[in-house]
């Protein structure tokens, strides 16, 4: 099977909308943390399953992932993936914004795999706020609401996190549309990957709503 074909002009329209939605996501994360978190211009492209895994750092890369399913007129999956060291750093930035630097609890362990409840809660909420902001921006172009599922945080190999999502999307497709971006704070990159993976049947709805068809 093939993906819905898009002209160059149509791709520009879609990329522009995704870019604005990603910017909204960054603003939401900045608002939550009290720090300026910038979002890179997203890369939007069609990917095979292997390419989606490569975007996330490879199947065995250990990541903290926040997953939010997308339901409604646009359905699919969205994920925020961070290498573990970056996830710890982002959690500290978020908690400093929420609690104040003097109120940050001491970390009980230097183990990169160990996240305490506060860190996990902050990262889950960051993922939720970020992804919801993105969906709200997209939802403005659609005639029906887009509903995010409750967020879920998983610490695992990227391949293991992503394959359930990929299995859902690739059951009758060989390629999916993936949007990826990265974040930075204070000039330092937070090597996060934001993946938006619409289901095949949602693409015509999305592209039509964006006015990308027929350009």
């Amino acid at each position: 099977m093939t993906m819905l074909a898009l002209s160059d002009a149509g791709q520009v329209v879609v990329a522009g909308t995704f870019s604005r939605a990603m910017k909204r996501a960054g603003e939401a994360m900045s608002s939550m943390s009290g720090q300026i978190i910038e979002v890179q211009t997203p890369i939007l492209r069609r990917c095979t399953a292997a390419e989606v895994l490569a975007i996330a750092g490879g199947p065995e890369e250990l990541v903290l992932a926040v997953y939010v399913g997308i339901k409604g007129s646009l359905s699919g999956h969205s994920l925020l993936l961070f290498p573990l060291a970056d996830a710890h750093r982002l959690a500290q930035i978020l908690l400093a914004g929420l609690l104040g630097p003097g109120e940050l609890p001491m970390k009980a362990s230097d183990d990169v795999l160990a996240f305490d409840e506060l860190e996990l809660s902050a990262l889950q909420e960051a993922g939720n706020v970020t992804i919801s902001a993105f969906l709200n921006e997209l939802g403005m172009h659609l005639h029906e609401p887009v509903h995010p599922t409750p967020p879920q945080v998983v610490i695992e190999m990227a391949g293991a996190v992503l394959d359930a999502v990929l299995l859902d999307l690739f059951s009758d497709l060989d390629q999916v549309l993936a949007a990826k971006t990265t974040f930075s704070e204070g000039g330092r990159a937070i090597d996060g990957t934001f993946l938006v993976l619409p289901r095949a049947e949602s693409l015509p709805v999305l592209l039509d709503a964006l006015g990308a068809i027929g350009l």
Partner: protein
Amino acid sequence: MTLTQSPSLLVAGIGEMVLSSSPEAQLVAYGLGSCIALAVWDPKMKVGGLAHFMLPNGQANGSSPVKFIDTGLDTFLRALEARGALLNRCVLKAAGAAAMLTVGEGLAIGKRNAEGMESALAERGLQLTATALGGNSGRTVQLGVGDGRLLIKRLSSVAEL
């Protein structure tokens, strides 16, 4: 599909299989979640294969010959036989089929993969000798072609199956 005699690490990507008769070869499938890996090893011929299946059923295509268990299993087994493996004396082990995400279809897909694998093998008169299936953690599996050892690596541990 990768077919090689070189003593190296051969990776079965998602929907792919790797086979070897080189005693130094290590066959690997990284980061299995809901996917299921089938490792087959012939102790006499020292031939091994590892297939990284995605889903229980569907129509296979050229780029992902073992994307689906029902249409890909025979492709995998015939490739092993072509390398000299006798299936009736082979050791068959499976790993993966976890439920990583509690939302969506993650749980169902892993379970369906485990059931699909067991029934597809039974239809061919074959059965698994060991499994590491289900749960909610990811796995990397590695089959040593020389000795048939199957290692299962999780987030912070490695064990032999």
